[in-house]
């Protein structure tokens, strides 16, 4: 079975967002990066799928040189090799459609049986790449996957997808297929020390973005702004608790008018 996993390097969840150039860009100078949390579930599922069904696993990432860190982490967790789409020096805006076309090109070359990715990236929150790549490759996709059971030696799978209110949709899919991993799919392993050592020597091929980009952006970003800060509210302390609760409930009714 050939398994591919798409990994994005994103600013970590504790990041404070600041604007640059009067809202024309984000100030990235203090960003610390991490593997997109949902992609960790994708990597883990890729490794487990390979452990179960055999075959080969490949990690594909796009971005500047720093994204190789994310790829090495995936390799330390057990992925065999990497393909890095290098965007260093590329100044044109890459919207999700552009990114999807580039990834689809690599997928077309690699011809995997399954592509795992995180159900969304926590920076742009778009959740576009799975469905868009699937469309460009004419493959089925299932997003927000919480369980994948392989059948027939990896030729088909029963896949569970979480929707609203804890409801679960169950799909039968045949490979090749694109699966967007959600949090409860598995418990990602910590990269073991021998894995970290081995990862340094695993093959990592490089492609320039211009080699794989097949289209220009359909959506552009005009500006960024920060949400309005709330003014400080009323905090009660030191009074008898029943009085404080009564006051708050009263305010919710008379002032905020929400109950």
């Amino acid at each position: 079975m050939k398994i591919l996993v798409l990994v994005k390097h994103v600013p970590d969840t504790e990041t404070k967002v600041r604007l640059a150039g009067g809202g024309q860009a984000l100030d990235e100078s203090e960003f610390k990066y991490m593997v997109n949390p949902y992609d960790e579930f994708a990597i883990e599922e890729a490794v487990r799928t390979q452990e179960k069904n055999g075959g080969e696993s490949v990690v594909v990432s796009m971005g500047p040189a720093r994204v190789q860190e994310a790829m090495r982490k995936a390799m330390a967790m057990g992925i065999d090799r990497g393909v890095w789409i290098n965007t260093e020096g590329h100044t044109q805006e890459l919207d999700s459609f552009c990114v999807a076309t580039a990834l689809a090109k690599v997928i077309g070359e690699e011809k995997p049986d399954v592509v795992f990715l995180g159900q969304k990236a926590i920076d742009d929150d778009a959740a576009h790449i799975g469905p868009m790549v699937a469309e460009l490759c004419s493959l089925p996709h299932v997003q927000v996957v919480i369980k994948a059971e392989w059948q027939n030696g990896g030729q088909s799978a029963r896949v569970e997808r979480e929707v609203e209110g804890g409801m679960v949709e169950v799909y039968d899919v045949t490979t090749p297929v694109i699966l967007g991993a959600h949090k409860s799919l598995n418990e990602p392993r910590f990269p073991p020390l021998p894995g970290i050592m081995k990862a340094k020597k695993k093959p990592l091929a490089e492609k320039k973005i211009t080699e794989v980009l097949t289209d220009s952006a359909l959506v552009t970003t005009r500006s960024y702004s920060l949400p309005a800060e709330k003014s400080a509210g009323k905090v009660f302390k030191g009074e008898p608790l029943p009085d404080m609760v009564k006051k708050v409930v009263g305010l919710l009714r008379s002032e905020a008018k929400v109950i």
Partner: protein
Amino acid sequence: MKILVYAEVRNGKLKSTAAEMLTEARKLTNNNTENIHAVLLGEGCSAHAQTLAAYGAGKVFVVETPETNTYQCEPHIQTISQLVQNNGYTLVLGPASPTGRDFFPRLAVRHKAGMLTDVVSVKNDSGKIVARRPIYAGKCIAEVCSQTALTFVTVRPNVIPSEIFNSSASAATEKFTPNFNASAFKSKIADVRKGKSEKPDLTEASLIISGGRAMGNADNFKILHDLADIVGATVGASRAAVDSGYAPHDMQVGQTGKTVNPNLYMAFGISGSIQHLAGMRTSKVIVAINTDPDAPIFQKADYGIVADLFQAVPLFKDELKKITDA
């Protein structure tokens, strides 16, 4: 501008997002409802046509083919694609729900059209569709612009207040039978399992009661569920509570969980990490109960009480019960 609104139906119920999108569509067309069409999918869906007309749909397409009864990506995409081709829409609106977010990006690529996801407002700027969308779980708002003549947009639930247009408007319904290419149906739905709760999802809830690590264990969440039942609220949890195994992940509010925007968000024993605040900061009113007076959540709260949640919850229960019983 000619607009199609995908009005989502789940378990026979019309989602409230349909009214929200139709209200926004009316703003975009200056109440020219002739240019606002809506589509309903699934057998029995025609029952909702009247509601859509009341909110401003000039025409409602009713698609009652069995393939569309349960949501599946490809039949939905093919249906809407054919309506777009037949009627020349410039904008297609859908909800940023698990369903809308599943098929709209794919549908947009099929038309090589701009896709604006999870937006909180839409405008027509000299013929271009421009929208505002929260990114980084709401730490920042991006203004994005579609560069194509046709644009697909998913709208965040609960943000745009819906307004009735004409409660006595009768729907001009039109039955539409799509011409399916079944060879493209590569995934097959085998089952849909109901969730434990009949309450609205966190992303659509207007009242949310959340618990943090201070809940101490999974059993203690019962007191929040009891409190929530009094006012019909949905229960949420912080990442710390989910990671500690006190609550399932589908209850998680925050940057690696759900972004919520209820009218009222009550946080019990949640300190308010950056990633949690990002996920609930657009709540209209925030109430925080925490033993630590320096907890960051108090800076975002409209009303706060420095107290132990286990003492406060029963008192809130009594006070809220007085209101609902009245």
